[in-house]
């Protein structure tokens, strides 16, 4: 693509195409967007994060990541659309402008680049990272079981051949460790939203324990409002609640760790499921999925903006 305007948002793209898109975005809107490299993947690919900021040091921030499970392609595609949406709406949409005048937004579109490349080149069904597991011929760790929150507990597997293998120790995956280091170093992230697909869910902590989070009531009311906003566009129905009560016990998950770090507004999405394709969602669903998800995201971001803590 020659510009972010001519970039085709309605198709799936390779890693290089998406990384080029990120560079285009930065080149076109350098006063609003910058690119930060927070680390490298197992196979040496850069872990790029877009920073949307209108200035000011260490502002309160919102983190959004997409595609930690590499095969869920609509997730990364949605992340690309979000990036464009943020630059298009800033200065035009009153609410987003107010968010960016007060807070920064960090967006990691390709959270698991090794896995993403692997889905394009070798195995479309690949979900995990591509790390080598000592003593096993099976590769990869589930990066959504690798966080230091109930690590190794029920709802994760100790078998390296399993899709939910938790890894040898918490933060063993550089893709996870990079985010952990970034979040700790930043110290002022107020909302953390990790996006997956598919099954139409909006979830909050915990996944590793049935003990409700102290902020359950507030998180539940945000989820109610977010899902209502999302459904208002195309009628897509979502379920919401804590991970363990809504789907199943899952230990070592992303938002359990972020919540325990003190990031109150920690949520995870499972995006649209057309009911016929699972995560092989046809490309013509990308834009509607992104549009409806954006509505829910705005509810969460507005709440974080208006309820500082």
């Amino acid at each position: 693509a020659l510009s972010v305007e001519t970039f085709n948002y309605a198709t799936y793209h390779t890693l290089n195409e998406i990384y080029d898109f990120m560079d285009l975005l930065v080149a076109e809107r350098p006063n609003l967007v910058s690119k930060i490299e927070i680390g490298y993947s197992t196979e040496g690919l850069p872990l790029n994060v877009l920073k949307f900021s209108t200035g000011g040091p260490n502002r309160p921030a919102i983190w959004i990541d997409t595609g930690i499970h590499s095969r869920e392609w609509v997730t990364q595609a949605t992340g690309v659309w979000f990036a464009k949406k943020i630059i298009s709406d800033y200065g035009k949409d009153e609410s987003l402008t107010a968010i960016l005048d007060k807070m920064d937004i960090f967006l990691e579109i390709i959270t698991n680049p090794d896995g993403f490349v692997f889905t394009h080149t070798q195995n479309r069904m690949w979900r995990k990272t591509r790390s080598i597991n000592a003593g096993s011929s099976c590769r990869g760790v589930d990066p959504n079981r690798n966080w230091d929150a109930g690590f190794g507990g029920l709802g994760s597997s100790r078998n390296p051949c399993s899709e939910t293998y938790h890894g040898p120790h918490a933060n063993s995956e550089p893709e996870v460790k990079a985010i952990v280091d970034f979040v700790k170093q930043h110290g002022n992230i107020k909302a953390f939203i990790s996006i997956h697909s598919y099954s139409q869910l909006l979830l909050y902590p915990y996944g590793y324990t049935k003990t409700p989070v102290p902020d359950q009531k507030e998180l539940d009311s945000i989820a109610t409002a977010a899902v209502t906003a999302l459904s208002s566009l195309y009628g897509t129905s979502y379920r919401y609640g804590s991970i363990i009560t809504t789907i199943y016990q899952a230990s070592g998950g992303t938002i359990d760790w972020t919540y325990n770090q003190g990031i109150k507004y920690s949520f995870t999405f499972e995006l649209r499921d057309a009911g016929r394709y699972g995560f092989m969602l046809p490309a013509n669903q990308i834009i509607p999925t992104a549009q409806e998800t954006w509505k829910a995201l705005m509810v969460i971001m507005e709440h974080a903006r208006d309820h500082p803590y």
Partner: protein
Amino acid sequence: TEVFVGHQVLRISMANEAQVEKMRELETMDHLQLDFWASPSHPERPVDVRVPFTSLQAVKVFLEQNNIQYFILIKDLQRLVDDEKAQMVRQRSR
């Protein structure tokens, strides 16, 4: 490159907790090389499983023996992968 010719994705609906347990049992049968896209949790939440061609018969027999309902969500996964790839190529050339 891994190919998925003849692989099917089954959407499986469980009627009760006992059937959820049966599905968890199926999940542990490593020799079938099943890929759970959505794992068993509650009876009201269906499970999606990618089943390689060589395991199709065994899985369908297991489900039928346990009165667990299913339908074929994706009949031939490789066809879908090929369509997706072709579409990306088309879009790129445009």
